[in-house]
């Protein structure tokens, strides 16, 4: 059995003391980051990436650490959703709908334990899914040439713009902003500079980590600074924590349904965890016999989105690892990590660097068990983190972001650029223009152009080459449907607004 020998290889990597410790450290750090209101997986991982380089970790270890942080933040995100009614990140938003009302009824402990178990089910099954589906998809990806890759990138952007957003025009604007930024710097095909304005600082292009930390972390601090009054949000206090066995048993099918739909949402390039938790919640609500209790602390309304978003988080790793196309904001950040570590995700990753992939998968299996322990029996400890006052937290987050970027490049120009991206991110957020497509555009812009140009070189400038294989045509059709379908589905599929207190 291929799978068993691969898993054995994976566990031999994952159980080396350093890797094991890193997985646990990542889980703890991730849960803390997720629990902090306003910090979620994408900005948490973004802040930590520059620092992870200073450890001199090898590729597997860095990836294990960051993915553990990612999973941990997905688990931890529910803590502030349930106790404060403030989601740490968009995927955790659906959990506030029923989590906070249940907590207000005095069952905060039950809500936390139930959502922890749902997270575990979702994340564990999704990791198993990754294990089974990853190698298969990697085999298909061998047939991908430049034309298919171009169509695939297009599909990711269309999905993100169509299904994953509230307004297609704004998502398209965001994608184009990102792609435009990716054009800055020396053109890799000709060696000539583009859009640098003669500034030597820009010859290398704009470092995507600078953009990511700016758009996610710095912008978050700006948004917080404006709303300001949040530090008085005490929310619900957590009393005793018991295990609501009956509720867990009652929601077992809910969790599995949420996991299934979340995993599929995660697989779609560009759709991601927010869509996963949203679809899981909507499906549960629309198939339930009595809908009246939803929104008032229904346990199914907690189990479904939590299983959904954690499963989507695992599912999103599949296209990221096999095709190099991230499915969500955080996997985009992880892709940035891989690219900086000089690892090219894609089919070759599975055949040539099996220790990276399977080490990661094995570590994730271990991480899930660790996270279950951290998030069920130890949830009280982490709920204390909510009491850190913003007057310490925000300067701390900001300084860590600065030191991270500074340690990476040592360039004052990059720091100023990061502040610029922070302000840009704030304005975009105000206008309702999503930041994730910008990041994805910056990350994938270079690759997208290169595959288009290669396709044109191969075909000597014949445009029909882009549609010459069934896979490419299929991807184009999926891309167009993904972008257009929401126009017709708008009536059924409107993403909910962030909660107001």
């Amino acid at each position, binding site marked *: 059995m291929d799978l068993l020998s691969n898993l054995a290889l994976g566990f031999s990597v994952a159980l080396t003391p350093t890797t094991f410790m890193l997985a646990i450290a990542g889980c703890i750090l991730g849960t803390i980051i997720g629990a902090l209101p306003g910090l979620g997986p994408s900005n948490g991982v973004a802040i930590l990436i520059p620092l992870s380089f200073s450890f001199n970790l090898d590729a597997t270890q860095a990836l294990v650490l960051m993915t553990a942080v990612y999973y941990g933040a997905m688990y931890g995100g529910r803590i502030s959703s349930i106790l404060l009614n403030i989601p740490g990140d968009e995927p955790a938003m659906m959990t506030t709908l029923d989590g906070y009302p249940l907590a207000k009824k005095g069952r905060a402990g039950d809500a936390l334990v139930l959502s922890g178990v749902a997270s575990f089910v979702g994340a564990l099954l999704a990791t198993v899914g990754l294990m089974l589906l990853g190698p298969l998809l990697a085999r298909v990806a061998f047939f991908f040439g430049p034309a298919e890759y171009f169509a695939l990138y297009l599909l990711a952007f269309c999905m993100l713009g169509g299904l994953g957003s509230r307004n297609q025009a704004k998502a398209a*604007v965001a994608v184009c902003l990102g792609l435009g930024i990716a054009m800055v710097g020396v053109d890799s095909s000709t060696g000539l500079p583009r859009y640098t304005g003669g500034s030597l600082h820009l010859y290398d292009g704009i470092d995507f980590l600078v953009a990511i930390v700016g758009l996610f972390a710095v912008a978050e601090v700006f948004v917080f600074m404006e709303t300001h009054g949040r530090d008085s949000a005490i929310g619900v206090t957590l009393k005793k924590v018991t295990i609501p066995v009956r509720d867990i048993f009652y929601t077992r099918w809910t969790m599995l349904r949420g996991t299934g739909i979340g995993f599929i949402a995660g697989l779609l390039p560009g759709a991601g965890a927010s869509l996963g938790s949203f679809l899981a919640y909507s499906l549960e609500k629309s198939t339930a016999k009595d809908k009246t209790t939803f929104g008032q602390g229904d346990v199914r309304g907690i189990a479904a989105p939590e299983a959904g978003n954690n499963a989507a988080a695992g599912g999103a790793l599949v296209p990221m690892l096999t095709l190099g196309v991230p499915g969500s904001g955080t996997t985009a950040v992880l892709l940035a990590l891989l690219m900086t570590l000089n690892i090219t995700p894609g089919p070759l990753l599975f055949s040539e660097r099996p220790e990276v992939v399977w080490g990661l998968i094995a570590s994730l299996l271990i991480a899930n068990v660790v996270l279950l322990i951290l998030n069920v029996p130890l949830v009280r400890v982490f709920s204390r983190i909510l009491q850190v006052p913003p007057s310490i937290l925000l300067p701390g987050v900001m300084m860590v972001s600065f030191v991270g970027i500074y340690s990476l490049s040592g360039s004052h120009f990059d720091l100023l650029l990061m*502040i610029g991206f922070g302000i840009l991110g704030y304005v975009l957020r105000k*206008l309702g223009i999503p930041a994730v497509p910008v990041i994805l555009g910056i990350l994938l812009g270079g690759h997208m152009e290169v595959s288009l140009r290669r396709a044109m070189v191969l075909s000597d400038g014949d445009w029909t080459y882009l549609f010459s294989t069934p896979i490419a045509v299929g991807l184009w059709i999926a891309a167009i449907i993904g972008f257009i379908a929401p126009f017709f589905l708008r009536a059924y599929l409107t993403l909910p607004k962030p909660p107001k207190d």
Partner: protein
Amino acid sequence: MSDRIAGTALVGLALAFFIGAGQLDVPFFPDPLGSKAFPRLIAVVGGLAGLAMILRPDGEPSWPRLADVGRLAALAGTLVFYVYALGWLGFVAATALASGAMSYQIKPDIKKAALIGIGLSVGLFVVFKYLLGLGLSALPRW
């Protein structure tokens, strides 16, 4: 209205980007597509999306009040100051000043802000320098 203004700005940006593509240097042996086509494609799509924002704007976002704008500008100023102060004052003093100032902006309590600033800067310095081994200089390099 905000969407219309932003859309107009974006259309302008796309136009500039498109025209800028025409002025790019071209190598002696270009590939069939060349280095101008993709940026132009981005500019066209971006421009159309900007146009769509002008034609079908969303509702007005809640812009900050003037006082809040002042606070945001102060934050941006603090950050830019921090970047330069890193060179002038070294990590410890610059971080203490900047994080103290940020803390004060969130909660105007000068004593606490000073304590938080000093605590954060020393704490982060120890963690980064000795635990993580980053090459930070505590004092300014002359």
